[in-house]
């Protein structure tokens, strides 16, 4: 009896071990999985956007896998492997190395911060691993002649280009004439970079620059800046602001009764979900430039946003939509490559011409990379803060094709 008990216990153990082995082996047979390495800021100052990007990727990959994975690879599933960059370029580089060498990922995505993406893509280029950049706007990321870097989002200089296109289009549409322009921007890398390009384009479009004012983002009082703005009395005010200063500027402008015909912001602080909460009715009429808006007039956008909001509790943002779309860009390339070989994936990515499918909730019309890997079609939308159902809401107004049905932009916002 006793020995028999021991024997059956042993048999049990063996059976359990075998069972475990059997259960584990399908996943171990690696060729059914495509590993995507993702370097994102999951902690530190940009953690919130990093997490937004992560959740958007997860939702896209779930959808792709649920729809049968990559069919040309026998229904291979996508698997996301994450690494935290902490917004630190050095960490981003080591994590990229680790994902490529230790995790053996088939391709990479990331990294949101331009400062991290720039060196991380360099690592991937060296190993010949394709690197899809959903967002990271610094121009030079796709201007180094790299073969393996593909950016879905628009680059920095296009933001400024589109701001002036918007002004031009709207003046034509409404028959308004705008002559004088003022630049007010935070004095960091971002603001000064924008201002440089503004000066160039304003000159080209024949505006008269009446104020060119950098300010420190940490200022306790922006009334001096607004006072200057009041005496300069421009038709257009262009802004680059971080979160706190966007609120302070908007409220101070209302207080000092500064009412330029057009106020055009550049995302950032003005696009922060907290901005409207903190400004209330002082923000009406402001135009802001963003990658995406919840009301963008594209098929599927509303449904995808509703699904995302239900799952994670907040709206999709420009960043997360680009991350979401990037997963479909990757799936499309894998489907055409029919291989997990990085070189084959690269060829397929380079030949991308995606104009339909779930990825097309983006504000632009398609994904097609130029020889440097920049999506030629990437664009930006301009929204206006308007009163909808008694509450301030961001309404898409430009480009005209993406404009919310039935909305007429208030342009100029002040007479």
């Amino acid at each position, binding site marked *: 009896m006793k020995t028999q008990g021991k024997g059956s216990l042993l048999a049990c153990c063996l059976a359990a071990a075998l069972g475990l082995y059997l259960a584990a082996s399908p996943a171990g047979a690696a060729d059914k999985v495509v590993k995507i390495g993702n370097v994102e800021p999951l902690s530190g100052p940009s953690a919130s956007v990093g997490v937004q990007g992560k959740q958007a990727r997860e939702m896209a990959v779930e959808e792709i896998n649920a729809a049968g994975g990559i069919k040309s690879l026998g229904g291979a599933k996508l698997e996301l492997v994450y690494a935290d960059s902490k917004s630190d370029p050095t960490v981003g580089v080591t994590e990229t190395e680790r994902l490529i060498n230790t995790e053996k990922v088939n391709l990479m995505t990331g990294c949101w911060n331009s400062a991290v993406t720039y060196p991380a893509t360099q690592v991937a280029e060296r190993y010949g691993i394709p690197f899809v950049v959903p967002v990271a706007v610094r121009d030079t990321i796709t201007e180094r002649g790299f073969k393996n870097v593909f950016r879905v989002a628009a680059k920095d200089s296009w933001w400024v280009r589109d701001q002036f296109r918007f002004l031009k289009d709207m003046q034509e549409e409404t028959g308004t004439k705008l002559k004088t322009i003022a630049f007010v921007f935070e*004095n960091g890398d971002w603001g000064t970079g924008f201002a440089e390009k503004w000066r160039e384009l304003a000159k080209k479009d024949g505006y008269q620059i009446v104020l060119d*004012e*950098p*300010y*420190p983002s*940490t*200022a*306790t*009082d*922006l*009334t*001096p*800046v607004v*006072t*200057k703005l*009041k*005496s300069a009395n421009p038709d257009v005010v262009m802004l680059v602001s971080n*979160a*706190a200063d966007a*609120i*302070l500027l908007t*409220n101070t402008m*209302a*207080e*000092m*009764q500064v009412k330029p015909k057009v106020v055009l912001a550049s995302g950032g602080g003005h696009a922060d979900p*907290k901005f409207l909460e*903190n400004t*209330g009715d*002082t923000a009406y009429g402001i135009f802001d430039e963003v990658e995406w808006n919840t009301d963008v007039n594209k098929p599927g956008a509303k449904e995808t946003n509703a699904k995302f909001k239900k799952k994670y509790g907040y709206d999709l943002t420009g960043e997360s939509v680009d991350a979401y779309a990037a997963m479909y860009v990757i799936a499309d390339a894998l489907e055409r490559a029919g291989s997990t070989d990085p070189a084959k994936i690269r060829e397929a990515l380079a030949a991308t011409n995606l104009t339909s499918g779930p990825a097309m909730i983006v504000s632009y019309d398609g994904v097609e990379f130029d020889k440097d890997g920049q999506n030629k079609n990437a664009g930006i939308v301009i929204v206006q803060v308007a009163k909808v159902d008694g509450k301030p809401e961001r309404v898409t107004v430009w480009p005209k094709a993406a404009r919310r049905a039935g909305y007429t932009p208030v342009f100029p916002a002040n007479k």
Partner: protein
Amino acid sequence: MTAVIQATLNGIMMGAMYGLTALGLTLIFGVMKVVNFAHGSLLMVGMFSAYWLIKLTGIHPYLALLIVPPILYFFGYYLQDLVIKPVFRAERQVREPLTVIIVTTGVWYVLDNLALMLFGAEYRTVRTAISNKSFALGSFIVSIPKFSGFVIAVATAVGLALFMRKTKIGMALRATSLDREAANLMGIDQYKVYNIAFGLGTAIAGIAGCVLIPFYYVYPSVGVVFDIRAFIIVVLGGLGSIPGALLGGLVIGLIESVFSQFMASTWTEAIIYAIFLIILFVKPSGFFGNKQDW
């Protein structure tokens, strides 16, 4: 010219409020000879108290002035009594106790991170009856929240100065400030005086919180922005001097507002620090400072 006068008006109003944020710091230093690094955090606590009170009850922001400062007084009183005093006792032989400064730094981090945990990092403002309201003074625009902030700041400084001169507690505070040993021998309970000084300093941070909240936003590390300014103001006006804090605040406010009409506002920051350095070289005791504090 209009812009300069407008900027001067604004500079005076903001300056008085900067002075108010520095008043508690200078009071605590004057009495305790301790640089209170937690001062900015106490201001943050004051701002959050005013924020929640107004947000939840919807009362007029200046009614909060009757509620927030007393609460903050007890907060400061017991903070000193329970956290700072024990360290102070251990270091009682030293004129400017360094460990106490380190403790206040600890209090700063604890308070800031506690607020971060409780309320998150986001910026918050509350719409009040006077937010974004202004009145015209000839061709100039005067912001109502800033104007009342100016009045309250000056009233607080005058009130505090009178309190220090006319009342018994005020005299005890001044006596301890001059010579804590001698005050002790005269029967003044040194630690009780410190509790009161810290309580008063914190209550003033509460007043500043109520004054700022109608036009400024609050977030857990908002204190840091005002703190740096408060330190400069205190040194400029003279450590421990009440009129000095107000004057120092006005100087900073005016430089910031008027100078930026003639140059990029980024520059005024540099000018403020340059003036700060010059004062340290030329008159290290500040406008009204006590020489023996150096």
